[in-house]
């Protein structure tokens, strides 16, 4: 019963906070003004590739892509440990 009251309080406070978000996808949200204009304007001259998605994924945010490949490789290692190298 106490858990239900706590959950209800969290839910009501979340509803009050969710009212203050900027409109979804609006161009004057604060997340579109920090680094995104620099990526859009300077991508071709700094990285030389026309594909903006590739240049952000591998050049500007290459460390995150490295983490993704490590996760895929870790999944492969887990399968090697359990199911690999036939006896």
């Amino acid at each position, binding site marked *: 019963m106490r858990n239900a009251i706590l959950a209800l309080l969290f839910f009501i406070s979340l509803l009050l906070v969710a009212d203050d978000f900027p409109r979804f996808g609006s161009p004057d949200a604060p997340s579109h003004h920090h680094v995104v204009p620099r990526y859009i304007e300077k991508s071709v*001259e*700094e*990285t*030389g*590739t*026309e*594909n903006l*998605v*590739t*240049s952000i*994924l*591998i*050049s500007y945010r*290459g*460390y995150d*892509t*490295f983490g*993704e*490949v*490590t996760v*895929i*490789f870790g*999944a*492969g290692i887990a*399968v*090697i440990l359990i*199911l*690999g*190298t*036939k006896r």
Partner: protein
Amino acid sequence: MSVVIRTVSRVLVPFILLFSLHIITSGASTPGGGFQGGVVFGAGLILLAISFEKGVVRKMITERKNVALMSTGILVYALVGLFGISSGGSFLEYGALPLGSPAHANQLMIELVEIGVGATVAGVMYYLYSTTAGGN
């Protein structure tokens, strides 16, 4: 599997593998890139493996070669990053490498990194198939 499936896959699989290489290497100007091309490569290998008898493809693509393919891709990615440190920049800073202007070095290293990513993803895709349903 039946004669129709074997014949069609014999004809189709080289094209699938070649097209996956095209997806990987032209990921810098068209949609695509490393992950997508790697998955298509793995799917082509799986198509080859399920349309023939159990063990025909397994003799060609042994487990050691598969694990070597998986490991080579991420090793290439890490080495490119470490070359950035040894040339005076930070980790994975392609512009610091002595290959011409920073934009040119970026272009070359993006291609190399994508090939590495594609190799790892293709290796893991085929490995997941061959250990669970690949026949033994």
